[in-house]
């Protein structure tokens, strides 16, 4: 019995020691690297050096963003003792707001020993001089210079380039998913919007790390390793600063958007959305008053109307409808249809009218229907095609789909379909079925469909390119610090299955818009060939006898569109202009197109090219111009705008 107890005890003790040895072996051999790192951390500290953020330049090499020197005061957490002592000493020489103190305490809480925590940024020269002179009173506080983003053009590129701002926990979480969070410090900047966000990894560069050996009290006693920071690359954009400025100026105080594309390569030449905002406000956190102003502004300056917001395209939709009908063989280019000034669905007495051309255009073919923007022609075409065929053809032009442009949060617009309506109005048994009248209204760019100005410019570039669709993009090339090319943008394109002859026909029809149609007001004195299409998209439905009184304000005025390209044979530029509540497309948007075309093709000064201005008139019933062509729609369309 005794012997068996001794044996059991031996087994127990030996077993326990074997377990201990195995566990020690596992920790020290299998987990060697993890504990080695922990051990290194115990006698070392990492000092991070920030890379200089890459900048954006336009197609001609002009800097669109700068990195400026900003002076700041900060402290290493290892030197920090008491915030009240530091604040009270510093406040003798510099004003520290409650927000500064709060930000400091937040950053301090999350920073490592050698991560410099900023107490106050953007010091004036006088403050720097005073603080430097009294630095002996607060030796633990460093006065230092660092680079900081600056947007020299203020709001001009707010909706394309976007802005950087201080990194947040959610940003770090997102970056962490890509395994890049070690490349950022707590008080770092990160691209929050636009191209700054899209090209963050290219612009950011790589953080430098100096690992220093420290003694038991944290004092530096040697250098273990030093990895220098790698600055971010410069991004050359396809944007043309001159054209961008002109587009911004021409939109004036209107709300709207302009997108100009180089049809050869899909490069964005101008991308304006108005109103904009000053991105410099966001860099170190926007103050409450400015934020309230932006957020509550009824003109929605934070909304990117060029690519994140979609609108009914009005008659600018007609060339795509025409090409769809030609492609699907529903009509021949010069087949004539009788236009009495209205269209009725067979079996119905309701008349879809051209209110501005009540008498109609008589016998009319597609080219003339495009030129004078006949609604009746396209009412009938849309009815005969039906929504399924419309979808089949229109989707080829990328309408209703994201273009894939290199900017975040693009809106896909809406190309309606029977399935879409069934989903959208699932709870309404009367609304959910697609009706022939729905197709009729879609046919003239009203009803449910709505697209972004970017999509309209892209679709127009496909016509300009005789059916070759080239994905729009901002990136031209990525440059190294010495200016050498690191990477070029690779063009992505595909060809539409529509015959080239159909595109050639449509280009001629769109040229007729300028020579004898709704856009003739901007055709005066042209030194190059120009093709385009106007559009006036109704915001609210009309009733017999005119608009209801309650829709009298500017908010309910029609949206003005104009799409164009020039020269017609070898297009160099495609432009889509959208003026929100601007009225008639041929009056509000077309002149903008002409001035931009003159500038880009002729290099003409804006004021010199204004000679055609006298010819711009608002179309009325007496003119052949039928640009206010959607006034017969009875479907409320204000819900299509978002």
């Amino acid at each position, binding site marked *: 019995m005794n012997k068996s107890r001794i044996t059991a*005890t031996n087994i127990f003790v030996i077993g*326990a020691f074997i377990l*201990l040895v195995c*566990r020690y072996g596992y920790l020290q051999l299998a987990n060697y690297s993890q504990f080695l790192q922990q051990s290194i951390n*115990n006698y070392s500290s990492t000092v991070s050096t920030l890379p200089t953020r890459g900048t954006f330049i336009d197609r001609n090499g002009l800097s669109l963003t700068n990195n400026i020197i900003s002076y700041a005061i900060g402290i290493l957490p290892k030197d920090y003792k008491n915030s009240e002592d530091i604040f009270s000493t510093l406040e003798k020489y510099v004003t520290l707001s409650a927000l500064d103190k709060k930000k400091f305490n937040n950053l301090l809480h999350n920073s490592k020993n050698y991560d410099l925590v900023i107490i106050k940024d953007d010091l004036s020269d006088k403050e720097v001089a005073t603080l430097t002179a009294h630095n002996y009173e607060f030796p633990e506080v460093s006065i230092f210079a660092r680079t900081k983003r600056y947007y020299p053009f203020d709001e001009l590129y707010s909706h394309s380039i976007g802005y950087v701002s201080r990194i947040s926990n959610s940003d770090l979480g997102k970056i962490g998913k890509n395994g890049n969070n070690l490349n950022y410090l707590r008080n770092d900047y990160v691209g929050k919007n636009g191209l700054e966000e899209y090209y963050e990894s290219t612009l950011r560069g790589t953080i430098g790390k100096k690992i220093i050996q420290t003694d*038991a*009290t*944290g004092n530096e006693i040697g250098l273990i390793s030093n990895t220098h920071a790698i600055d971010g690359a410069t991004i050359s954009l396809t944007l043309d600063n001159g054209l961008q400025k002109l587009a911004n100026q021409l939109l004036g105080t209107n709300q709207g958007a302009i997108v100009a594309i180089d049809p050869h390569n899909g490069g964005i030449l101008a991308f304006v959305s108005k109103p904009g905002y000053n991105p410099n406000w966001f860099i170190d956190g926007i103050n409450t008053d400015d934020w309230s102003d932006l957020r509550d502004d009824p003109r929605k300056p934070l909304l990117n109307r060029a690519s994140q917001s979609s609108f009914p395209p009005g008659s600018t939709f007609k060339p795509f409808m025409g090409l769809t009908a030609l492609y699907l063989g529903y009509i021949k280019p010069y087949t004539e249809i009788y236009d009495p000034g209205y269209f009725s669905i067979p079996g119905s007495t309701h008349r879809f009218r051209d209110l501005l051309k009540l008498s109609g255009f008589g016998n009319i073919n597609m080219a003339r229907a495009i030129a004078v923007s006949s609604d009746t022609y396209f009412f009938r075409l849309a009815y005969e095609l039906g929504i399924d065929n419309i979808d089949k053809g229109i989707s080829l032009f990328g309408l209703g789909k994201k273009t894939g442009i290199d900017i975040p949060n693009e809106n896909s617009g809406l190309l309606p379909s029977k399935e879409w309506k069934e989903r959208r109005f699932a709870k309404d048994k009367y609304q959910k079925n697609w009706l022939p009248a729905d197709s009729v209204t879609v046919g003239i760019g009203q009803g449910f469909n709505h697209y972004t100005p970017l999509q309209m410019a892209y679709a127009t570039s496909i016509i300009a390119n005789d059916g070759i669709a080239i994905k729009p993009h901002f990136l031209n090339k990525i440059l190294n610090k010495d200016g050498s090319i690191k990477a070029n943008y690779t063009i992505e394109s595909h060809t539409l299955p529509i015959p080239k002859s159909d595109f050639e026909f449509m280009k001629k029809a769109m040229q007729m818009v300028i020579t004898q149609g709704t856009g003739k007001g901007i055709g005066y004195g042209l030194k190059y060939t120009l093709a385009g299409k106007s559009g006036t998209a109704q915001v609210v439905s009309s009733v017999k006898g005119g608009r209801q009184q309650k829709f009298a304000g500017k908010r309910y005025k029609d949206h003005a569109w104009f799409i164009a390209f020039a020269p017609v044979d070898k297009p160099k530029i495609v432009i889509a202009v959208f003026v929100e509540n601007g009225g008639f497309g041929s009056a509000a948007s077309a002149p903008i197109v002409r001035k931009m075309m003159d500038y880009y093709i002729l290099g003409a000064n804006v004021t010199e090219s204004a000679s055609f201005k006298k010819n711009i008139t608002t179309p009325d019933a007496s003119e052949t111009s039928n640009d206010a062509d959607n006034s017969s729609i009875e479907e409320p369309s204000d819900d299509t705008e978002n």
Partner: protein
Amino acid sequence: MIPKIKQLIHFISSLFGLDKTIIITLLILCIGNLFIQYSATDKDISKLINDGAYLVLSFVVLFIVANLNITHLKAIATPLYIFSILLLLGVIFLV
């Protein structure tokens, strides 16, 4: 029953801030050795209490040291190292 044991193991290991396999094995060894000693000393209860008290004390010290902030421990690393050498010498010459 098993979940309760698991909870107890987790509680003990988290209490010491140490690897749970090691701390539990150590505890079992120490308690087992107390009983072996009790048996070997002809069931001398005073010896058991005396050694048990030392054992409790050693685990309290282990608990304190394991939970000291590494930066504080680093600050007193040199004197602590000298003290531990002196303790070793004390074991050789005094016990």
